[in-house]
């Protein structure tokens, strides 16, 4: 009787559950293949990307030598005639970097973060470098290799553009994607100014007409139009928790700052919430600031050494970095 019943019912519930899980695993494998593997195999190199934006649509940007002179004159007090390295600074005729490591909180709740105050003589001194020097989906490279290859004096992790299929993403004037994704953006124009926009607060075509040097897509924007923290931030719960952070701040054309917070390292540094990070930028007096890819990616390098402590044992490859470098004129 019992056997008859079992035959009628077919598989035992446990076996059925295992088979269901295996089936789900199979579906996930197929999904992974079409979602991640196939696009990576098909991904076109840089030349297949849409035509890059014209480099200088504004009258100011077309006269690069004038701009360079302007910034060098304006920030002359920060530059030196010869390159000078110290443990926490670098100055030259074209670049000034002052690094400072600070702590927020005390004891087990403390967070260590690094602030880089940056003056540059020309826009060429601040740029981005993408993994393997290509604009390609899923392309990653060891952070220190990127640091070496780009000739960075100072670098921080970017927005991991290569793990993003869509969004407003431009690197050194080259377009990776102008397909709208529901994401905030940070835009650097050819006059050196930086503007940040919330998810629904920008028109890609209108921005493209102004000519864009860099467009990062991660967020959220950290400061409002008056340079104050927002009352609330549109972030998922996991992103809002204390985490290692990487962010860029803007004072005026030619004057920027990078902030990288160490985190997820018990007894050394907990990490920052988005609110705490925004508070730091407000305290620094930045006009605007933008959160970049943090977590295991958050990293600052200086003089080809790791300046911050990456949380995952420094083994995560990155998609891109933002860096300060010497140009031939300033070297």
């Amino acid at each position, binding site marked *: 009787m019992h056997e008859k019943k079992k035959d009628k019912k*077919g598989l035992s519930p446990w076996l*059925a559950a295992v*088979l*269901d*899980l295996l*089936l*789900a695993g*199979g*579906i*996930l494998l197929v*999904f992974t293949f*079409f*979602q991640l593997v196939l696009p990576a195999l098909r991904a076109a190199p840089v030349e297949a990307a849409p035509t890059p934006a014209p480099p200088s649509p504004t009258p100011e940007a077309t006269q690069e030598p004038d701009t360079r002179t302007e910034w060098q004159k304006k920030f002359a007090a920060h530059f030196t005639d010869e390159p000078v390295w110290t443990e926490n600074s670098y100055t030259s005729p074209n670049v000034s970097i002052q690094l400072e490591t600070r702590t927020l909180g005390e004891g087990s709740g403390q967070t260590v973060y690094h602030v880089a105050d940056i003056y540059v003589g020309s826009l060429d001194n601040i740029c981005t470098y993408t993994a393997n020097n290509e604009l390609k989906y899923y392309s990653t490279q060891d952070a220190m290799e990127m640091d070496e290859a780009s000739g960075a004096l100072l670098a921080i992790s970017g927005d*991991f553009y290569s*793990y*993003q*299929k*869509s969004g407003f993403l431009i690197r050194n004037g080259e377009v990776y994607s102008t397909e709208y*994704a529901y994401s905030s953006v940070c835009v650097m124009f050819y006059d050196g100014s930086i503007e940040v926009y919330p998810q629904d607060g920008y028109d890609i075509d209108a921005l493209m007409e102004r000519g864009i040097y860099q467009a990062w897509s*991660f967020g959220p924007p950290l400061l409002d139009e008056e340079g104050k923290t927002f009352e609330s931030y549109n972030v*998922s719960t*996991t*992103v809002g928790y204390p985490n290692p952070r990487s962010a860029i701040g803007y004072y005026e054309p030619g004057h920027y700052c990078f902030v990288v917070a160490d985190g997820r390292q018990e007894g050394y540094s907990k990490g920052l919430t988005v609110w705490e990070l925004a508070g730091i930028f407000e305290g620094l007096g930045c006009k605007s600031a933008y959160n970049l*890819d943090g977590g295991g990616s958050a990293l600052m390098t200086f003089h080809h050494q790791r300046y911050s402590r990456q949380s995952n044992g420094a083994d995560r490859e990155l998609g891109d970095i933002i860096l300060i470098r010497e140009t031939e004129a300033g070297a």
Partner: protein
Amino acid sequence: MKWIRRALPHLTIAFAIALLTVAILNEFNPRMGFLQGRPALVLICAACLCAAACGAVLYSRDRREK
């Protein structure tokens, strides 16, 4: 037809588990865009179709039993 009716609940469970996994991964790393693009759309549609078919089969069986 009978084997379809027997396989439908299992397919529905499997699609549901797969979809939940993708949704959780997307929550932890939204920048990867797991729920964007055609594969995600196909997965969602397949899960919905299976669920709808499963529901229809259950409903008709329930009516017959009554």
